[in-house]
């Protein structure tokens, strides 16, 4: 007789640990920036691209990307769009308020494998939020990487995130940073058009480049087709995919893409691993 499977873990995978809001800063009409710190004082221990589950007592729990690099100390950043129960309630948080945090969860952007290569980062809308963790990581280890190309697209100029930080990024040596808005208005004199318009404007050496793509679901197929035309290999394209990650630990079933759980095998996927998975890219 086989005994029932023994559960190795004695700790509760659903138990959040306490964290405190250090800073709150509205960014756009819908998005707010938060800085948190674990009450234990320990660093979160995350890697660029990972996410946490944020708990607000009585409201619930939601998966939120970490927007800062682990190289930036024990605190960590999030930028949250006000669209759901938890994200809505988060917009009422003030500094010193407490939340629960589980994680970090999921896969990372391959910042180690990128070393010595050019990095092309393509961010649509709030796709910049998780990619900022990679950008900061690269800037803090600048000599390890080749040319950095950052392409950012938003719907309008009012939706732009990290405006001050982008100015600083532009000043760093060997960085190409291009921004576009889908619809120009009186506050924007730059490029107008969807993000794929920016790709022909950068000079990419396809054999030396790793591409990172993060944005709304509709964006991926158009960007990837163009990257393929530019001869960037599928194995050098990384995408961060959004799904409904309820538990974060591979149990609840919500984030499934075919045989993958986005909370376990993702959210960062190598495109060549999912290119023939029919539910992955819409």
């Amino acid at each position, binding site marked *: 007789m086989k*005994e029932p499977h023994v*559960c190795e873990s004695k700790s509760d995978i659903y138990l959040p640990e306490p964290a405190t809001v250090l800073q709150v800063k509205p960014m756009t009409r819908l998005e707010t920036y938060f800085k948190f710190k674990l009450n234990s004082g320990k660093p979160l221990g995350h890697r660029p691209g990972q996410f946490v589950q944020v708990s607000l007592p009585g409201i619930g729990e939601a998966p939120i990307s970490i927007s800062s690099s682990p190289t930036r100390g024990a605190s960590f950043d999030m930028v949250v769009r006000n669209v759901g129960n938890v994200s809505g309630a988060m917009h009422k948080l003030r500094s010193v308020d407490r939340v629960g945090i589980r994680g970090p969860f999921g896969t990372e952007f391959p910042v180690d494998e990128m070393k010595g290569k050019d990095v092309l980062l393509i961010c649509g809308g709030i796709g910049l939020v998780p990619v900022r963790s990679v950008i900061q990581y690269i800037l803090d280890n600048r000599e390890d990487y080749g040319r950095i190309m950052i392409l950012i697209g938003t719907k309008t100029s009012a939706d732009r995130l990290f405006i001050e930080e982008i100015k600083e990024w532009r000043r760093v040596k060997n960085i190409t940073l291009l921004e576009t808005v889908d619809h120009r208005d009186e506050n924007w004199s730059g490029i107008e058009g969807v993000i794929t318009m920016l790709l022909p404007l950068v000079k990419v050496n396809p054999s030396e480049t790793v591409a990172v793509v993060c944005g709304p679901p509709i964006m991926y197929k158009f960007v990837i087709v163009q990257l393929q035309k530019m001869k960037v290999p599928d194995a050098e394209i990384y995408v961060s995919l959004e*799904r409904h990650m309820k538990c974060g630990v591979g149990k609840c079933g919500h984030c499934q893409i075919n045989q993958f759980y986005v909370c376990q095998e993702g959210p960062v996927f190598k495109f060549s691993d999912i290119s023939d998975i029919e539910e992955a890219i819409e």
Partner: protein
Amino acid sequence: MSVKKLSAKAFNKWVDVCVQEHCVYGVQAKNDRFAFGPLARGVDLRLDYDVTILPPKKYLQPPSEALLKFNKEAEYESITEVEPFVIFGIHPYDIVAISQMDKVFSADNGDIHYMKRREQATLVAVDVQNASDNVFAGSMGTAVVDEGFDILLTRLKDSYLIDIRTEKGEALMKHTKKAEDATEADLKLRQQVQEDNKALLNKHELLTAPQELPALLNQSLDHPVWKEKAELCYSCGSCNLVCPTCYCFDVEDDVDWSLDEGVRRRKWDGCMLAEFAAVAGGHNFRRHREDRYRHRYYRKGRYIHERYGDIACVGCGRCITACTANIANPVEIYNRLREDH
């Protein structure tokens, strides 16, 4: 361990003592059907049942289960106290399903909430005495079991054979002094019952071996059957709710009247429900019924297999019975794919 035998009369008395000494859930009649419920008297136990409305999963992963307590200061605490209990009368296909759930919840990130319940449970299985209208356990290799239970009961003519496999099973057997050792002849009779069940529990015949299903599905992504059936689907999730291997859940906070504290609960969810794959902001990654319908069969027949090595269908046939649109027969789907392959 050992195989014992109790006369039908002594068996009923044994169950009566078990009910007095333990928290026992057993199969009972519910109108013209059967259901697991708290058992008060041995005489109410209906081991001749064909199939229960819901599988015994409801005691291991309750429909609504408290995971954590919290207060408004965002202090969270695990809730894991579970009293020991006995489930009496689990059919072999449901035992197989529980073994699959054990794997899911113990693997990788072990789930202490499920495992605590599982540790406290004593599983008393019973060989099927009456086949239900839609059972196809014979096709899935789950009509009989040889592991995954603490005790296996088999009805012979005027007696029950009691196959005791664990210490938990031995503990229950302390409640009778009438048990005799089973004879060679008894064991032969049991073998006959089990052999017969493999053939009898097969009201729908799967024309392919279960282990061929992942490959078959792999080649059937664009088959017209998904759209055809999904057009009739109400997205009601009944097939999810009655399935012994469906375990997806949602998590909600229930706040106390005081507004100072509350309980975080997980509740059964179902991949056929329209909002299952929707994210905040409204985007739904499986917004078409066809996507959800196909996903369910792929999850049962291929994805779970890739992750845990099991075909996540045990042939209980509950989905077939529960589906008001009459589109949930897995055998019909799989045979159709095979035919057209």
